[in-house]
């Protein structure tokens, strides 16, 4: 019963302290970024408009992205749902035995890691936070900061289980121990999996933003790079795709980001007699799995479609009073908080979203701080209206 989980979380003092600390730090980070770079707000307003254009014509942009990816020499695949995405992944990787992943909510959404582990494949998350979440067998507690609930003491215990006691609880030591372990895995893996913060329909360029540098390794040193990209991440062109990741990182409280990666097709060289050869220092193969999983249907829904312009900065989570007590435990199996509840409805289970919607205060802080002005609380309230209708499972 959800309410019992709520009470357990409220009694967990460490959990409460870490969530509060993370929220306060993020608030500070966002307000600093916006104060020092007022142009970011204009950029966010533009992303809102462009996002709506794409949503109202999503099929067209999916087709265009697929054509552009193919032109760039990448494999392009459209998966209608999680199952199809996993089947495509399996077909692309029949003999794989080791996969390294960078943090991807889309991979979480389709349950990729668990699926690969069932196949007997060794899988490692390379984002430090997500790595810790993997070690504790838990779930990411925030879209951008998955391990905000894990203290340094717990992180040490988790790393020690790998036979690598970092020697102390100093975050530097912990990060170093993780780096040593993961570096070995990344260099041995032939397949690397990433998500995509944005993808440009005109060039087929994948844009990935990060601070840790693991994404450039995972997408750079392997032979085969597979990216799982939800279709709502499509932007009309490379320019707006770059704008979007700037907005995302600023409103997540990490600005400027350390790295922005732009990947257009597999690596290649034409340095010998001008003949193009795939696979220079980077991957020889790039496959992009575009994930629908309810998004196309939502793009035609009068209420839910606004959620599709979400840039996944997670600011609504940090500003939500309920999230500040429960983190991603409230909102659904993968996504959490105000935006997460609405995503749960789109990609997992609208009835679950309706049930959880009653824990929302409808206080409107989420909508107030959303960089692309999604009426998050209105959408959450709409989920309540569903339960009063006869046989409310399914669409209405």
């Amino acid at each position: 019963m959800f309410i019992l989980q709520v009470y357990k979380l409220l009694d967990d003092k460490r959990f409460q302290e870490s969530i509060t600390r993370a929220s306060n730090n993020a608030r500070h980070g966002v307000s600093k970024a916006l104060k020092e770079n007022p142009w970011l707000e204009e950029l966010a307003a533009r992303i809102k408009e462009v996002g709506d254009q794409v949503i109202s014509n999503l099929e067209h942009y999916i087709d265009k992205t697929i054509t552009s990816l193919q032109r760039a020499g990448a494999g392009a695949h459209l998966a209608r749902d999680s199952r199809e995405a996993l089947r495509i992944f399996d077909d692309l990787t029949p003999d794989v035995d080791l996969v390294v992943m960078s943090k991807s909510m889309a991979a979480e959404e389709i349950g990729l890691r668990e699926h690969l582990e069932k196949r007997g494949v060794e899988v490692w998350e390379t984002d430090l936070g997500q790595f810790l979440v993997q070690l504790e067998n838990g779930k990411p507690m925030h879209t951008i900061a998955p391990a905000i609930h894990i203290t340094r003491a717990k992180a040490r215990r988790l790393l020690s289980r790998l036979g690598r006691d970092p020697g102390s609880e100093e975050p530097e030591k912990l990060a170093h121990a993780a780096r040593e372990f993961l570096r070995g895995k990344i260099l041995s893996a032939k397949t690397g999996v990433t998500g995509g913060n944005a993808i440009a329909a005109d060039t087929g360029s994948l844009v990935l933003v990060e601070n840790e540098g693991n994404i450039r390794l995972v997408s750079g040193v392997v032979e085969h790079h597979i990216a799982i990209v939800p279709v709502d991440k499509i932007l009309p062109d490379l320019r707006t795709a770059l704008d979007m990741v700037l907005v995302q990182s600023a409103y997540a409280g990490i600005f400027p980001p350390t790295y922005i990666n732009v990947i257009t097709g597999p690596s290649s060289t034409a340095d010998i007699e001008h003949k193009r050869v795939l696979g220079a220092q980077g991957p020889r193969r790039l496959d992009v799995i575009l994930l629908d999983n309810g998004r196309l249907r939502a793009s035609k829904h009068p209420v839910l479609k606004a959620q599709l312009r979400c840039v996944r900065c997670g600011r609504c989570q940090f500003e939500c009073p309920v999230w500040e007590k429960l983190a991603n435990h409230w909102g659904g199996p993968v996504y959490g908080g105000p935006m997460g509840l609405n995503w749960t409805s789109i990609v997992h289970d609208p009835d679950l979203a309706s049930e959880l919607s009653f824990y929302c205060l409808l206080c409107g802080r989420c909508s107030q701080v959303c960089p692309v002005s999604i009426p998050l609380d209105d959408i959450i309230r709409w989920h309540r209206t569903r339960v009063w209708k006869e046989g409310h499972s399914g669409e209405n």
Partner: protein
Amino acid sequence: MVDPLRLGRMLADNTLRHGYPLPVDPQVITGWAAEAGLPQPRPGRPVVFTGALYQLTPYIEALVELVGRFRDPRIPSLGLRLASSLPWSSELLLTLLETPEVARGVRRAWGILGSIARLLREAGMRPAYAWEADLYSGIMLYDLGMDEEFAQQAQRVHKLLRERGVEKVITLDPHTTHALRDLYPRYVDGYGLEVQSYLEVIDPSLISTKGEAGEVTIHDPCLYARKAGVVEQPRRILAARGLRIREPQMSGVNTYCCGGPIEGLAPRLSRRIAETRLSQLERASKTIVTLCPICNANLRAAAGGRGDLRILDLAELVGNA
């Protein structure tokens, strides 16, 4: 936890049948207006519309407490069985709620409403009151997603007010203001009421400067700040009375919820949120001004009778000069 479906049905049934979410004596809702000497509606005069929220808040608090007694998280199955077997929609429930404490709460609410009426007169206004039309706005039904029942109540309230020739309405709390101003036009064909909060119609330059000097902080209700644009007005009224305002962390459109809306469903979670808000407020001042009866009740509950804090409705602080 309260089953929101069961609770919603009870509130809706009562609202549509009695006009209020609980079958209270209408005198509980309207008695204050006779004491304040408000006249019946007359052409050209604005009408004060309470939407029954101030008067019903003590009952809501008692209901939440009653449900809480049946809901022990250590024995969830038993707690839930007991809670769901409560006589939700009957008059018996009301009997359980009619305690001396609730009666004191209603007296306090009447006092606040009377103070608001005096404040309006002091600012040169001549408000009237439409006894039979001062029903519950239905806002909780809207919040619960019961759009059909909310629409019925909205149409009924609108009809009653229009039948009495009412054109201008003065609301007293953020929920009723939001319902009548922002939501009713979407649910009532030919909606013809001009709605303003009392905080918006009072010209601070017309009210007397005598009053309680000192320093206060202010808790902006979410709906006033983010939906109705009522942020500066209460500050101007407090300043006119000579009070200095210390802004809390998170104010204006950035205000932080008191936790009230989920007190029935998840009382402990609601209380924690109220405690978080209270700590932000008390860092600014030990005198906290509220603009909504639900915020006031929640913050008081979170304060748990602490003697060093004063949590007062704006009208309690400035309305008695």
